[in-house]
């Protein structure tokens, strides 16, 4: 009984402190929204212009690294258990994420190497630069397909947390009116 009372008291205290703590899920929702927005705009170089395309590419790379850091626990635990279960949704997810990670790294590095407005002026062989440009473009098209599948596989999470953190104010508004 005493233990029950203690836990009842402990819950509101925890809630009170969690207000001041960083909500990881909320941060993930906002970061993922930013990543998606930047990605779909950044994909269209003829919409943004080359200068913004390259700047957004760097911004995206930073946000992408942050996204991985926030999901590091998941990556570590799944890497450890990868060969335990043969058929599982998270395994498909894992393989897809590895492909996305590798493709994204390639696109980012090739983008930096062929950049013309970042002021790096790397003196690469012209033929190599052309090949790199082609691969950069093809790689980014592939990223679009993988990202689409990535979003699709996380749809439940997106609907649940998106409605909670992005549209959570709507029911509150209804209740107040």
């Amino acid at each position: 009984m005493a233990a029950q009372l203690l836990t009842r008291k402990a819950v509101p205290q925890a809630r009170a402190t969690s207000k001041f703590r960083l909500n990881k899920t909320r941060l993930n929702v906002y970061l993922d929204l930013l990543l998606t927005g930047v990605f779909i705009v950044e994909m269209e170089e003829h919409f943004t212009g080359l200068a913004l395309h390259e700047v957004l590419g760097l911004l995206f790379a930073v946000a992408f690294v942050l996204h991985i850091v926030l999901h590091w626990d998941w990556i570590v635990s799944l890497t450890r258990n990868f060969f335990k279960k043969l058929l599982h949704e998270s395994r498909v997810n894992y393989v897809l994420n590895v492909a996305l990670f590798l493709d994204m790294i390639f696109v980012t590095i090739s983008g930096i190497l062929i950049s013309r407005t970042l002021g790096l002026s790397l003196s690469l062989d012209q033929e190599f630069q052309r090949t790199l440009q082609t691969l950069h473009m093809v790689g980014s098209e592939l990223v679009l397909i993988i990202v689409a599948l990535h979003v699709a596989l996380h749809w439940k999470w997106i609907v649940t947390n998106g409605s909670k953190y992005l549209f959570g104010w709507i029911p509150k508004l209804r209740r107040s009116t």
Partner: protein
Amino acid sequence: MARAEKRPRRSLRGFLILVALVVISGAILWSQGDLISPVQSTAMVISMSSGEDGFAMISDRSALPGSAETVAETAADAHAEVSTETSVETSSTAAEQPEAAAVTTGTMTLETFTAELATAGVDVEAVSASMSAEGRSLENLLAVVNSGRTTVADLAARLSGDSAQPPSETESETESTSLLDFRWEELGSVAYNLWVILAATAAVIVIARPAGWVVNRMKRVQRPVTP
């Protein structure tokens, strides 16, 4: 309990909204000519970058000046679409003059197309030169016309102003270095990217059910039920 009942209803509502979004935005993109499959766009990227002199990032494609570059982009797109329908008829004269090779499509030949452009006041040779500098040809523009995306008159109106100023080499090198230089007419391409993501999501949700059923069956086969 009530919450548990609400959950599938909410996900069903979410799925229906997603499907509606995909269908409506797909129809809008289709009507604007922005809807192409990712495989096709990848093929387009490869085909665009395959030319020796013609390779350029999209921002570089300003050799065909002004508004004509948008036409050239759609031309490359449409060229991929109609290339299967296009057949090249080579004659003895065409062997001597490769430029005048008659390209017969379902609607218009290259010869009639260039003749119509010339009568509309377009400097065909200048346009052809600027396009070949990009690794393209007038066939790309013909493909656009034959695909019905634009008319010869419209194309001529766009090109006539541009052909008066032959493209210089420096023009192809000039690219905007200002950060906020959006080309709003390309917004459809951005919307297309979002559409691909949404469409893939809807497709995966639809496929996931039978796939899940198959996986469960396989699991049962692997692990027979013990009494």
